[in-house]
């Protein structure tokens, strides 16, 4: 199989990640539950991973790295823990349902939403942001890059806008963590929400929040913490404040090794490699008769190329790619309804090719030949 669905998950993991999870499965106890060699080994691994991620994302305190199962859980914690029915929130048309659905639930409770509109190329007009402000605007919640088109947002600019207007900035880094530089302090991010299993190349079931100083999130869930057990309420100190129940210690051990791999490899090298593959594929398919490619390829972007072939059902194209060419891609709606609406692909869907660090130029070329073949039929 040629795996070109890295925007869904990075199927191939670094060997060190596999080894770390395997070792953890044989050695880790439960963090903070008792004080024995097993629980302490788990606590050391988990704390070490907090330190690595805090440094990796420009945080200032490892205790402000809180683990979750994925970025969806992290986004729910951030959105419901910081915002309420009295607030107005700005988001964008690029969002995944992991942002949209929590926001829509808040809207059902009385909150007001405004969306920075995307055009037919999936681009936004940043100059329209000030016009969306209201007296009760509390936050901007947005993705770093569209999971459908790969178009990236200028988070430095959005962070500056939030700083200027005293807004919280909640960032969904699902498509960029691990291959784009992200700095919580420099980008003025209030809460960075990440998943471990995509660009970070860790195991599924890992993710979290990196929380800026002064940002106090109401606990989303409460329960066992191993500390302050006689308190009725969830303890207030981070990270315990947002972590109830047993953590995915085995997964976090793998994520720790993944961050080591990213640092050793260099995210700029990963980004360069993935971008080269994305552009190679894009150049190969953009002029094929009948093929429509979506997105803005004139600036920095995530390694995604999304297209349609004539008026073919996108699901049929992906099925041909898998069955006849052994190429795994993602078709359909991609959990991004507003983005599809902006592109005009709500009915047809689209076929997404997303490249990862372990893909090769030969695989990109094979995918080009496959699309040419399908388009010629």
């Amino acid at each position, binding site marked *: 199989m040629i795996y070109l669905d890295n925007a869904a998950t990075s199927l191939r993991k670094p060997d060190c990640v596999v080894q770390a999870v395997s070792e953890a499965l044989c050695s880790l106890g439960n*963090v*903070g539950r*008792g*004080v024995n060699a097993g629980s*302490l080994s788990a*606590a*050391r691994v*988990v*704390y070490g991973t*907090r330190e690595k991620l805090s440094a990796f994302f420009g945080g200032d305190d*490892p*205790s402000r790295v809180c683990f979750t199962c994925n970025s969806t859980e992290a986004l729910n914690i951030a959105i419901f823990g910081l915002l309420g029915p009295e607030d107005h929130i700005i988001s964008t048309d690029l969002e995944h349902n992991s942002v949209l659905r929590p926001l829509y639930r808040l809207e059902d409770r009385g909150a007001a939403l405004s969306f920075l509109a995307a055009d037919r190329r999936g681009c936004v007009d940043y100059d329209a942001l000030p016009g969306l402000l209201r007296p009760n605007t509390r936050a901007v919640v947005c993705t770093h890059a569209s999971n459908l088109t790969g178009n990236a947002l200028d988070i430095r600019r959005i962070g500056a806008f939030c700083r200027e207007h005293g807004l919280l900035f909640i960032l969904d880094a699902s498509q960029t963590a691990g291959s784009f530089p992200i700095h919580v302090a420099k980008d003025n991010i209030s809460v960075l929400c990440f998943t471990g299993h995509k660009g970070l190349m860790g195991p599924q079931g890992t993710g979290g929040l990196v929380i800026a100083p002064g940002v106090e999130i109401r606990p989303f869930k409460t329960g066992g913490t*191993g*500390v*302050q*057990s*006689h*308190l009725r309420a969830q*303890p*207030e*100190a*981070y*990270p*315990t404040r947002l972590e109830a129940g047993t953590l995915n210690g085995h997964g976090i051990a793998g994520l720790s090794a993944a961050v080591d791999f990213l640092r050793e490899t260099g995210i700029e090298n990963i980004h360069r490699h993935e971008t080269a593959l994305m552009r190679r594929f894009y150049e190969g398919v953009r002029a094929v008769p009948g093929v429509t490619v979506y997105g803005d390829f004139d600036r920095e972007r995530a390694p995604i190329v999304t297209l349609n072939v004539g008026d073919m059902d996108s699901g049929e194209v992906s099925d041909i790619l898998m069955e006849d060419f052994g190429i795994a891609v993602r078709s359909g709606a991609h959990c991004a309804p507003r983005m599809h609406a902006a592109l005009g692909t709500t009915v047809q869907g689209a076929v997404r090719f997303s490249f990862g660090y372990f893909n090769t130029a030969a695989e990109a070329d094979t995918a080009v030949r496959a699309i040419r073949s399908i388009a010629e039929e």
Partner: protein
Amino acid sequence: MRERKPMVVFTFHTTAAAMAMEKLCKARGLPGRLGPTPRSVTSDCGIAWLAPASDREVLENAPGAPEFAGVYEREL
């Protein structure tokens, strides 16, 4: 029976803070180890940093130490 000695007990608000203490002490060669918080200090569970009472001052004033929930002396 374990021989009881005067010990200083540092408690923390979170397990993460306890791990930060261990890392700091290991890096700087400071005395002590992680252990269960004595019930005579609090019944709230958690991990404590345990060291000879004579080392209390050096530990209490260690630059970069995490915030302590409390500092106690006990015969342990």
